[in-house]
């Protein structure tokens, strides 16, 4: 029987939500690692019971936890994320040079084929890989040491590498996104990187016409059947690329606001995408206090609000960049979590929504596993 497992990272621990394929009745387990920030959890596509979790506090630093039984039990694995070469400097908010300093793991991306291989995107921006189930981590220095690196400046959340996409069709191709440097592409398994930001604009903030870097990319998604098409929620603007990041064009269309954090892609319809518009960069809550997911069935430009089951008054939550995911059941389920501690599911591709949980700590990430 098909089952769904939702992995939820929050400000105060991790939660695992499970249901059968009806997605009507849910069991909630947790908090795992109570009191710790869990920025991200993600299961291995090659072995779904292998799950990696990023655990952090300002007091005691970074840990990585691994489960080999679907989140029932966990063991701490390696937590040494030492940059492999002299860290050098990036720009601080005030424009002065600042030494690279490891702070936390934002995103864990397990390999598509090897349960023991997992990638980690960290703050200050760097890319690490483990090939022994998380026991040891090695930095792939090509990204951090890119010639544009000394000019990277943090976004409000820090200089974080928050998105890692592994291309299932082109061997060695992967993408990474960094706030507020931009999107980068590698075609050699992460050894070397180049910025792929042509077509992005941050009005009024950049001195050059087409700078190579300097974009506050919030999240990027790819549908596995169309690996050359990327969808991006930028600080402002929803963008798409149809040439593996070489060029981007805006598809914000009729959205009430094109500011937001997550972006999702339907599991079976590569031109059906989802965003959660947020009022502005200074007002991190939905326009008019109405929580609306917007869906485009045309790969952008034309958007429809999805409201059934979502609060349509007095709602002032945010939805973070890694807090939206889809399952791969025949009728695609869409999931997202809020800073108010709600986790919502739509079992019908966004037409209707229901809260699985309402009172969790602020949700930092949501991932979904569809289990046979």
């Amino acid at each position: 029987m098909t089952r769904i497992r939702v992995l939820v990272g929050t400000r105060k621990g991790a939660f695992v939500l499970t249901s059968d394929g009806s997605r009507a009745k849910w069991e909630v387990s947790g908090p795992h690692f109570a009191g710790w920030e869990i920025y991200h959890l993600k299961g291995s596509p090659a072995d779904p019971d292998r799950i990696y979790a990023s655990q952090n506090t300002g007091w005691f630093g970074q840990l990585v936890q691994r489960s080999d039984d679907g989140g029932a039990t966990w063991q701490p694995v390696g937590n040494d994320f030492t940059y492999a070469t002299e860290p050098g400097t990036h720009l601080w908010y005030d424009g002065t040079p600042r030494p690279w300093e490891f702070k936390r793991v934002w995103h864990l991306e397990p390999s598509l084929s090897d349960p023991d291989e997992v990638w980690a995107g960290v703050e200050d921006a760097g890319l690490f890989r483990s090939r022994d189930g998380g026991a040891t981590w090695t930095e792939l220095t090509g990204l951090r040491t890119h010639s544009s690196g000394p000019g990277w400046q943090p976004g409000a959340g820090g200089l974080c590498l928050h998105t890692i996409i592994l291309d299932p069709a082109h061997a060695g191709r992967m993408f990474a996104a960094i706030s507020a440097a931009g999107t980068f592409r590698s075609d050699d398994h992460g050894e070397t990187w180049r910025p792929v930001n042509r077509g992005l604009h941050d009005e009024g903030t950049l001195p050059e016409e087409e700078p190579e870097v300097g974009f506050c990319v919030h999240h990027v998604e790819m549908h596995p059947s169309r690996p050359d098409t990327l969808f991006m929620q930028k600080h402002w603007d929803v963008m798409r690329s149809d040439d593996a990041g070489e060029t981007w064009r805006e598809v914000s269309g009729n959205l009430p606001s094109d500011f937001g954090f997550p972006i999702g892609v339907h599991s079976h319809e590569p031109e059906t995408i989802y965003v959660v518009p947020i009022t502005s960069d200074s007002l991190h809550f939905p326009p008019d206090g109405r929580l609306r997911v917007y869906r485009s069935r045309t790969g952008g430009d034309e958007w429809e609000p999805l409201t059934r089951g979502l609060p349509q008054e007095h709602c002032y939550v945010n939805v973070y960049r890694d807090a939206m995911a889809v399952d791969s059941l025949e009728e695609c389920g869409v999931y997202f979590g809020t800073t108010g501690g709600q986790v919502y599911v739509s079992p019908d591709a966004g037409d209707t929504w229901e809260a699985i949980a309402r009172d969790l700590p602020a949700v930092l990430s949501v991932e979904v596993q569809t289990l046979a």
Partner: protein
Amino acid sequence: MTAVRVVLPAHLKNLAHVQGEVTLHLGGERDLEVTRQVLLDALESAYPVLRGTIRDHVTGKRRAFVRFYACQQDLSNEPADVPLPAAVVAGSEPFLIVGAMAGG
């Protein structure tokens, strides 16, 4: 041989799967000057999961929101190679590792 008592903060007790105090037996057969460095090296050797949670992996410095106390003294800013108080070395007083009050 010296038996030093260490009290961990709650989160690190959970992480190391310990309850109450930790007792570290330091020194072996030779005399050893018990410093914070020696104590933390022994603690991390006994509980490798604590590596990086009290001291930075690279610099070895105390993490900013971790404090050290013993014998009603704040030892947080003492150099790591200074001998610990005699009462700690004798095991009559514990060495306290504390998560600093922070936030609001």
